[in-house]
């Protein structure tokens, strides 16, 4: 089991049932241990950054939480409920939303349709074969609202024709439409031009302000440290530290991990 270096500031904020709780979570492929005994609890409304060198197991951890990969051992509790063996769709319906490293939009659907799809799924009536989406129905109205929140007004543009930064905004609008309790953002700044980073950071801040808990994997440390309540650091599949951004900056084990001599 990984022994994360935590201080009192490393404990989750707030009280009550955590948005997500990982207990001794491991994932092994053949003989390779990709994720090793990770323990982490994210409080309701908290935003936690997950950092670590390439290959540390950050995205694998997200895949275990969202159900893309099946855990080898350990438990995933979503709002107190054991979802370890639940399929992706069920976890999503229970309030788990995520983005991926590569942009996860439907490129041949319009911007509005991308968001509408998520909204209609949450609002119900999704299975209606004969019900026509209308300009003034609830799902469409909501989709316009979420697109306004992320400042993306290209409603009729095919999602595949958007710039990378706009695709990221669209992904977040889709997440807003899902009203998730926990959001996993996997490298949201990857491939985004430096010009667009501050704008996207504000959009993520706005997403968090809606009340969702957020976990964010990101290589832009300045973005992570300015955005999150706590930082979890992974290295070789283990979670070696969980602390406030200030605490993490002073943590010797973290500095060693980034310098490449964690074994010492």
């Amino acid at each position, binding site marked *: 089991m990984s022994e994360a270096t935590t201080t009192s500031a490393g404990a989750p904020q707030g009280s009550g049932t955590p948005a997500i709780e990982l207990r001794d979570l491991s994932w092994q492929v053949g003989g390779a241990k990709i994720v090793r005994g990770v323990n982490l609890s994210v409080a309701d409304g908290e935003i936690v950054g997950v950092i670590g060198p390439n290959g540390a197991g950050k995205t694998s951890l997200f895949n275990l939480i969202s159900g893309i990969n099946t855990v080898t051992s350990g438990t995933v509790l979503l709002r107190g409920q054991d979802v370890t063996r639940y399929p992706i769709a069920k976890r999503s319906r229970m309030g788990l939303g995520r983005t991926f490293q590569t942009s996860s939009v439907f490129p041949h659907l319009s911007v509005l349709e991308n968001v509408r799809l998520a909204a209609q799924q949450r609002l119900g009536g999704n299975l209606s074969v004969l019900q*026509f989406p209308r300009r003034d129905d609830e799902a469409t109205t909501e989709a316009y609202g979420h697109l306004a929140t992320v400042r993306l007004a290209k409603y009729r543009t095919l999602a595949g024709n958007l710039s990378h930064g706009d695709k990221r905004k669209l992904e977040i609008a889709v997440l807003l439409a899902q009203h998730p309790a926990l959001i996993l953002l996997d490298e949201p700044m990857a491939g985004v031009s430096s010009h667009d980073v501050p704008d996207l950071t504000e959009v993520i801040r706005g997403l968090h302000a809606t009340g969702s808990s957020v976990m964010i994997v990101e290589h832009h440390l300045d973005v992570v440290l300015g955005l999150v309540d706590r930082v979890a650091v992974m290295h070789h599949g283990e979670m070696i530290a969980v602390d406030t951004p200030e605490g993490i900056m002073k943590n010797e084990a973290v500095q060693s991990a980034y310098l490449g001599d964690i074994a010492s």
Partner: protein
Amino acid sequence: MSTFILLLITGLGLGALYFLVASGLSLIYGLMGVLNFAHGSFLTLSAFAGWEVGRRIGLDTLTGFLVAILVGAIVAALTEFLLIRPLYERHIEQVLVTVGLSLATVALFEGIWGPDPINIQRMPWLIETTTIAGAPVPNSVFIAIGAAVLVLIGLLVFLRKTRYGLIIRAGVENRSMVTALGIDVRRAFTLVFTIGGIAAGIGGVLASNYFGYVSPLMGGSLLIFAFIVTVIGGLGSLAGAAVASILVAVLQQFTNYYWGYGDLIVVLLLAVVLLVRPQGLLGRKAA
């Protein structure tokens, strides 16, 4: 001139039959990644069902037609639910199951109705001809073309205008992401299979009226060209299937009439398309 018109319109009629099979194949492949080799059996069974009902209660009724559609829909839905769904994400096994089902059902049909084609009695109006620019065109051809156009319009409206159509279009692009939104994509699989079965059911009745017989092998022979049409049009593209159906059938009809190599020219066309534009005429390039 009248020969040209006759070949053109009968080619369109044949293309309509190809489209009725290919539309289901294309939708199923687009959403599920399954090449359904049993699709021809849906058509054959529907054709026999329509014929059996028609000869028992009379030819001047739509009941046989409606029963055929119902049979196509039910058989397709059951196939998806009982055989394809347990093999979810195991595409090779899914293909093998559909190949096996296809072979088994043809043997079953031969056991029930015999291996030889059975000439059917058709409504007199279907055998009569309507003269277009001097060409006497059988009315059954117009019915096939009209039905295919209605199916195409119906499918396009369903896919582009309805809530469930939005899910299917999204699923064709990325099944995993649809699932990540909390949508149970397996329901869409069953629905798409059922839609394919309905189109095959319509195709079965129209094909038997077009050719004037029912046979255990009729679905299989149409399926071969429907696969070619689906690949030429672009796997997963409904509009591509429509365009390719017309192109293949008209080319086949003209070549058959003038040189007798209609099937060969279609296969050559397939080879050219695969070499020059592997994703098909209206298909999307693999990422």
